[in-house]
């Protein structure tokens, strides 16, 4: 009888865990869709207003700063949702001048559209794979962290040297690394490693944002922009 009770309790706990995971997943994708849309709207506003590059850079720094220092304090309250919108909106404002610059080139609109479609394709394919197979990619954690440190080091070098090949390699590396993070982050949500949907949304947003900007850079180079 005790064994039957234990099996029943274990089943209840397991179904509760699945329900909780599904709730986190649904909330994450809903918030991610809204923040991506909001960020895109802010990017369009930034292009129409014609925000100067310096101001755009400050918006980007502010967005990153909010994500790093302010958001962790509010991630368990409803204020956190407002903070996510503020940070992603600022990143959208920050990216506006870059998109405007690409759009001003002859092949620009096609390049931007291709980068957007490509980012969507990568996100859907990788997320779809993890959601379907439910595989655990947490073993990639160390590899991804080390890869990111190496990539940041390379970006610092590229800031003070004029090496177009290095810039292309950084963009290609960033796409690969962020694709790896998409697998890692999505599998963490599915397998219960991430239970906070605000944190999960920010992680996925950063992955998508970096894939888009890096892909835009690579396609811009190929399109002679």
């Amino acid at each position, binding site marked *: 009888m005790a064994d039957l009770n234990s099996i029943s309790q274990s089943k209840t706990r397991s179904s509760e865990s699945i329900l909780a995971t599904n709730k986190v997943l649904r909330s994450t994708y809903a918030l991610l869709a809204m923040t991506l849309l909001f960020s895109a709207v802010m990017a369009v506003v930034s292009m129409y207003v014609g925000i100067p590059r310096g101001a755009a850079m400050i918006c980007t*720094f502010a967005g990153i700063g909010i994500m790093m220092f302010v958001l962790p304090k509010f991630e368990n309250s409803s204020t956190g949702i407002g903070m996510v919108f503020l940070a992603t909106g600022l990143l959208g404002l920050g990216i506006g001048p870059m998109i405007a610059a690409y759009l001003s080139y002859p092949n620009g609109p096609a390049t931007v559209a291709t980068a957007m479609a490509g980012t969507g394709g990568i996100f859907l394919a990788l997320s779809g794979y993890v959601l379907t197979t439910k595989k655990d990619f*947490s*073993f990639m954690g160390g590899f991804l962290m080390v890869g990111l440190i190496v990539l940041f080091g390379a*970006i610092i070098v590229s800031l003070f040297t004029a090496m177009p090949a290095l810039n292309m390699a950084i963009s290609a590396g960033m796409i690969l690394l962020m694709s*790896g993070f998409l697998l890692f982050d999505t599998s963490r949500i599915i397998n219960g490693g991430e239970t906070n949907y605000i944190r999960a949304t920010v992680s996925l947003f950063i992955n998508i944002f970096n894939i888009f900007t890096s892909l835009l850079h690579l396609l811009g180079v*190929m399109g002679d922009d």
Partner: protein
Amino acid sequence: MDWMKIVWALLLGFFIWRMIPTASHWLKHGPKGSSKEWMTTAMLLGGVVLFVLLLMKSVAR
């Protein structure tokens, strides 16, 4: 604008400084993948590479 480059470099340096303990923790205590799991990952990322190459070819002039 040199000040922007300096601010970016400082910010990235700060990120690296913050990430080193996390990376070290993941490398020491994180789960280890089997060769099959790494092969699956390599195939998925290989697919991303092929897709990006295709996109680059489509916009190349």
